[in-house]
C-alpha cells in the first residue's frame, strides 16, 4: 500500500525552540489518519509544514516530507503552488475567517475551479452548483449568491469542504474542521467529510484534540505530545492496547464523542512531569538548535 503522505523524522524549530521533535507519520492512500494531541502539541505545525505555510520564524532543521512518493520538503514556492489545490487541499479550522468576506460564495468556488481546471464561467458555475449538492446544501442557488457573513458556521464549513474537494485532491488536510461548530452540526460535518473521502478515495490527515472523533472516523492515528510522537498505529490497536501512559490518560479523559470536545481532563501531574523531562532530555541530546 503506497503512502500518500509520509513524514519522516521532521524537526522544526521556531526561534530556536523545538516545536516538532523528529515527528514521523504516514497517511496511506484512501485512509483517514488522525493526528491527536493537546493544545500546543504541534499538530497545526505538522499541517502547515506539509502545506508549506510555516510561520516566518519556523525552520525545518531536518527530516523529510513526501507526497505521493515525491519529496516536497524543500520545494520552491512555484512547484508547491502547482501541487496545492489539485494535489493537496486544506479544510481550515475556523469557518468564520476562512472564506473571503469580500466575495460571494459563487465567486470563491468558481475562482478555484477556473484557476485549476481552466473552466469557462458557465461550466465552472454548473460545477459549483453540483458541488453544493454534494455537500448537502439546500437551496444552493441562493447560497451561491450570498456573502460568507450571511451563512451559519455549519453552512460555511460545508462550503469550505466543497472547495477542498472541488479539485479532487489526493490528500486533504483537515485542521480541527469542526471545533468551532456546535455538536450536532459537528457530527454532520464529520459524516460529510467521511462520506466524500470514501467516495473519492482521498487520503485525509485529520487534526483534532478529540479522541472520540478519531475513534469515529479515522483508520490510523498518531498521538503527539510536545512535538513528539508518543503513540502510533491503527485506531483499534491504539484504543485496545495503548502503548503509552499518555494515551491511556487521554482516553480516560475523553468525553463521549457526542459530548462537547473542549475539555480534555488534565493529565496526571507525575505523567506530565515525566513527559516534560523526556522533551528536555530530547532537546539536550539534539541541541536546542
Amino acid at each position, binding site marked *: 500500500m503506497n503512502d500518500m503522505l509520509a513524514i519522516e523524522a521532521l524537526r522544526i524549530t521556531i526561534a530556536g525552540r523545538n516545536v516538532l521533535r523528529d515527528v514521523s507519520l504516514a497517511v496511506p492512500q484512501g485512509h483517514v489518519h488522525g493526528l491527536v494531541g493537546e493544545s500546543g502539541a504541534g499538530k497545526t505545525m505538522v499541517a502547515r509544514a506539509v*502545506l508549506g*505555510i510555516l510561520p*516566518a520564524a519556523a525552520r525545518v532543521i531536518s527530516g523529510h516530507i513526501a507526497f505521493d512518493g515525491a519529496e516536497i520538503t524543500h520545494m520552491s*514556492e512555484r512547484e508547491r*503552488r*502547482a*501541487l*496545492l*489545490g*489539485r494535489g*493537496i*487541499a*486544506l479544510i*481550515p*479550522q*475556523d469557518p468564520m*475567517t*476562512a*472564506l*473571503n*468576506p*469580500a*466575495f460571494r460564495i459563487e465567486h470563491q468556488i468558481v475562482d*478555484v475551479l477556473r*484557476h*485549476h481546471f481552466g473552466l469557462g464561467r458557465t461550466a465552472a458555475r454548473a460545477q459549483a452548483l453540483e458541488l453544493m449538492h454534494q455537500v448537502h446544501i439546500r437551496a444552493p442557488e441562493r447560497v451561491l449568491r450570498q*456573502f460568507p*457573513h*450571511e451563512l451559519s458556521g455549519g453552512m460555511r464549513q460545508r462550503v*469550505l469542504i466543497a*472547495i477542498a474537494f472541488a*479539485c479532487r485532491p489526493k490528500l486533504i488536510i483537515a485542521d480541527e474542521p469542526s471545533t468551532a461548530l456546535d455538536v450536532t452540526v459537528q457530527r454532520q460535518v464529520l459524516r460529510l467529510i467521511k462520506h466524500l473521502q470514501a467516495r473519492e478515495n482521498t487520503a485525509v490527515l485529520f487534526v483534532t484534540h478529540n479522541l472520540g472523533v478519531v475513534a469515529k472516523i479515522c483508520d490510523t492515528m498518531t498521538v503527539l505530545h510536545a512535538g513528539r510522537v508518543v503513540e502510533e498505529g491503527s485506531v483499534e490497536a491504539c484504543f485496545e492496547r495503548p502503548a503509552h501512559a499518555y494515551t491511556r490518560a487521554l482516553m480516560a479523559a475523553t468525553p463521549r464523542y457526542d459530548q462537547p470536545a473542549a475539555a480534555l481532563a488534565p493529565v496526571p501531574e507525575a505523567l506530565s512531569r515525566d513527559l516534560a523531562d523526556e522533551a528536555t532530555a530530547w532537546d539536550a541530546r539534539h541541541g536546542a538548535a
Partner: protein
Amino acid sequence: MAERRIIQATGMRPLVRPGRVTLGATILALLAFAAVFAPLLAPHNPIDQDLMVSFLPPFWSDGADPAYPLGTDSLGRDVLSRLLYGARIALTVAVIAAFLAGLLGTVLGLLAGYFGGWVDALISRIVDIWLSFPPVLLSIVLVAVIGSGLHSVIIAIVVIDWTRFCRVVRAEVMVQRNQDYVAAAVTIGLGRWRTIVSEILPNVAPLLIVLFSLEMGIAIIVEAILSFVGLSVPSDFPTWGGLIQEGRLYVNQSPWLMVFPMVCIILSVLGLNALGDGLRHRLDPVMRR
C-alpha cells in the same frame, strides 16, 4: 468614535448614518456640479475687473446689484463667479492629490503589511521619519523650493499625506493577512501577488474609499492654506484660499468677502468627512446587510 463603539456593541444601525452619506454625497455632488459647470453657471468672468462696482454687498443687503448676487471685491470682480471657479481648482486638486497619495500610500502599505520583515521595517522607518516633519511647514517649504503652481500644490499634498494611507493600509493588511482566507488562498495555489491584489485588496477597498473621501477634505484645506500664503496658482486666478487672503484686507469694510470662501471650505470638508464616515459603515462587508 464612542458612538461607533456603542453601535458595534449593540449591533444597532444608527439612524443618523444614512443621513450622513446622503448629506456628504449631496455636498460633493453640488461641489462637482459647480466645478464642472463653472463657465456656464458663473454670471461674470471671474477675473474681469470693474472698479465702478467694487465692494458691492451680497443680494440681501441694501444697495446690492442683482447682477452680482454675492457682491464684488475690491477690484469689482464678481464674488459668486470667483467662488465657482475656486471650486474647480479645489476639486481638481482634491481628486488628483487624494488619488496619487492613495496610490503611493496603498502600494507601500500593502507591501509593508503583507511581507512584513525588512520590507515593513524599511517602509515604517520612512513613514516615521516623514511624520516627524510638521506637515504644513513641509508643504510650504516644498512648494517654495519646487515653485508655485497647481502641480506643486498637488505634489506637496501627495508628499505629505501618502503616509496616512500607508499606515492605515499597512495595519489593515496585517490584520487581513492573518485571516484564514489568506492561508486558504495560498493553499489553493494562488501566488503572492494574486493573493494581495485579488484577495486582500478587495477587503481593504472600503477603507480606501473612506480614506479617499477624508483625504479630499484635507487636500482642500491644504490647497486653501497654500493659496492663502500665495504659493498656489497666480494670484488673480480665483482660489478659495486666495479669496480669504484678499478678503482679509477688507474684513472691517466687507466681511462677506472672507466669509463666503470660508463657508465653501467648511461645507466641502464637512461634507467629505460625513461621506467618509458614513461610508465606513455602509461598506464594511461584515456589517453590510
